[in-house]
């Protein structure tokens, strides 16, 4: 493989090496890290509102109902998807052995993406909410999302089409899969729903909600993990064949499971049963991926002590395993009757989006940013602190919500307990969630500061 360098390293590069511009990756990464921090503030506020419901409650645009969609959309699209896209702009040209097809198009995509996120902040705070989870943004912003996604897709696909190495590494498949599936999943959740009502619309909505995680964040998150785990540990991937099993079973299995969000609800029983069966089959792609990534690290675990990206990556893999064990289990009717609609669900969702996919994106950012700017990371010790704050805060958050959610579900199933008593009982759980949330937020601040200080600070010695 030919040596590849970022533009910043060009001076030291041997002749014939590919010099990557990385301008698009830079803009995506910097803006996503900034949103991670800003939306983190919103996250802490809404966690506090569970404990102090009157907090900032005198203005309509600061109520829970307005801030929650901003938190969800801001984290999903402002931080996570943008960071994933930024990393794809960094990774794909390197795997293809060519430059990104068009940095100009990439920069335009980054600008458009920021317009969308800022538009989202204004419209959501104003209460312009379409009323569908994950698809709250008004239709004119949805159209901009589609345009930006097509621009992203063209750039990646043209880079792949021009690639120098014929064989495509698994990261390339996952990225291409993500781009294609997202296109259809997003159209279903944001446009097809416009032409349906009631149960039919809910079914389309949950197909989108479920696959936003399963066919958008999972493939691009795994693309990142598959690239950065071998890179950061300097170890070849354990098995190419196993990565194929994981990819193709994901492609087939995931899309069937949307109706498990409506188990026991007003939707056809046969559809619920299909969703349950396919939810159980999700164990196949998940365990294939997890085994492959663990086996890659065999004999290399000591590297975790020294490397912050590896710490985040491998913790992310563990959380992936746990989340995707919970998912199939609570789609079983008996378990679902207890945990559905309780606080268990945000515990589960945060482990997927924060514990797994955000950890992957954070690891990729920690790895890529010093190399793109050709500077040493601002502070290794701060990076370590950011890991432990996110890890301990995250664990506190997930475990208390699972326990609290289970407990809440049991109380609901005892109809002699008045509903309000089940609310009051959860107060200690929400206090722990708020404190863990503060720890996680501290981790986010340290991460964001470290990355921005690296990118914007004075150039020091070159990164190794």
């Amino acid at each position: 493989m030919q040596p590849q360098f970022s533009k910043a390293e060009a001076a030291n590069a041997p002749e014939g090496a590919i010099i990557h511009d990385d301008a698009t990756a830079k803009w995506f990464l910097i803006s996503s890290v900034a949103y991670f921090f800003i939306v983190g503030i919103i996250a802490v506020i809404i966690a506090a509102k569970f404990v102090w419901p009157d907090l900032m409650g005198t203005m309509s645009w600061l109520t829970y109902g307005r801030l929650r969609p901003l938190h969800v959309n801001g984290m999903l699209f402002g931080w996570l998807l943008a960071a994933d896209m930024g990393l794809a702009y960094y990774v794909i040209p390197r795997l293809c052995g060519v430059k990104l097809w068009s940095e100009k198009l990439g920069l335009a995509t980054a600008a458009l993406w920021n317009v969308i996120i800022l538009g989202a902040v204004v419209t959501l705070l104003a209460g312009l909410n379409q009323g569908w989870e994950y698809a709250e943004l008004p239709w004119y912003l949805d159209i901009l999302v589609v345009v930006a996604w097509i621009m992203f897709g063209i750039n990646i696909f043209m880079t792949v089409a021009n690639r120098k190495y014929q064989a495509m590494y698994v990261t390339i498949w996952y990225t291409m899969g993500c781009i294609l599936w997202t296109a259809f999943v997003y159209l279903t959740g944001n446009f097809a729903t416009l032409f349906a009502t009631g149960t039919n619309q809910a079914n389309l909505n949950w197909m989108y909600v479920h696959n936003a995680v399963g066919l958008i964040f999972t493939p691009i998150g795994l693309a990142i993990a598959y690239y950065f785990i071998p890179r950061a540990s300097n170890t070849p991937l354990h098995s190419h064949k196993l990565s194929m099993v994981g990819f193709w079973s994901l492609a087939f299995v995931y899309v069937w499971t949307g109706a498990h969000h409506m188990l026991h609800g007003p939707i056809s029983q046969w559809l619920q049963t299909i969703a349950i069966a396919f939810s159980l089959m999700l164990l196949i792609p998940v365990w294939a991926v997890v085994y492959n990534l663990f086996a890659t690290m065999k004999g290399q675990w000591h590297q975790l002590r020294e490397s912050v990206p590896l710490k985040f990556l491998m913790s992310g893999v563990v959380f992936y395993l746990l989340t995707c064990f919970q998912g199939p289990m609570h789609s079983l009717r008996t378990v679902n009757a207890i945990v559905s609609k309780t606080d268990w669900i945000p515990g589960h969702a945060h482990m997927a989006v924060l514990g797994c996919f955000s950890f992957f994106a954070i690891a990729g950012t920690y790895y890529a940013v010093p190399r793109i700017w050709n500077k040493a990371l601002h502070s290794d010790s701060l990076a370590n602190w950011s890991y432990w704050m996110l890890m301990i805060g995250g664990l506190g958050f997930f475990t208390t919500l699972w326990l609290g959610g289970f407990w809440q579900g049991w109380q609901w199933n005892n109809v002699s307990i008045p509903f309000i008593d089940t609310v009051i009982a959860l107060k200690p759980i929400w206090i722990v969630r708020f404190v863990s949330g503060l720890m996680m937020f501290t981790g986010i601040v340290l991460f964001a500061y470290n990355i921005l200080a690296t990118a914007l600070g004075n150039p020091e010695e070159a990164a190794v």
Partner: protein
Amino acid sequence: MFKKADNNALWAIGLSLVLFFIGGIITTVVPPLVDTSWSKPFENRDAAKGPTGKLVPLNDLQKKGRAIYVREGCWYCHTQQIRTLLADTKRYGWRGVDAPISTPDEFVYDDPHMFGTKRTGPDLARVGGKYDTQWHRTHFRNPRDLVKGSIMPAYPWIVANPEEFSAMVAYLQTLGRSKDWRPANDYEK
């Protein structure tokens, strides 16, 4: 077949879309064609077949109230579905009468649907007629004045706006009323 996708990008694209569309079509396009109750408004005149009643579309005032429900994000904390669980039919019943299970034909006019996914507060699928206007006025002004320990936000700006408040209450009183599930004069409007 799968091996070929290793080196051939077009093949990989085609295959991943084909696999995706099998499940995609069977779970989104097919169900409403097979289950006609998804699009046929509820109507039952025969008491032997369960609760009688008829689903009617909302009037303008109720629609306005529903838009406020959507705008304020009430649906992030309140579901609107009585599931096929005793825990739901008993808990959300009223004065000893169990709430009937929600069926797709009761939601045919719902756009956007408000089924919800989280119950930070109680389910509202059958709340229509349970509380009167004065109760809602006090409750929206500050929920903790009526329900000690509640964590629902206060909505003084809705109460202060008579037009919005009456629309909101008008909408809430429709919830779950297409099925006539309670003794005739048990509604507290």
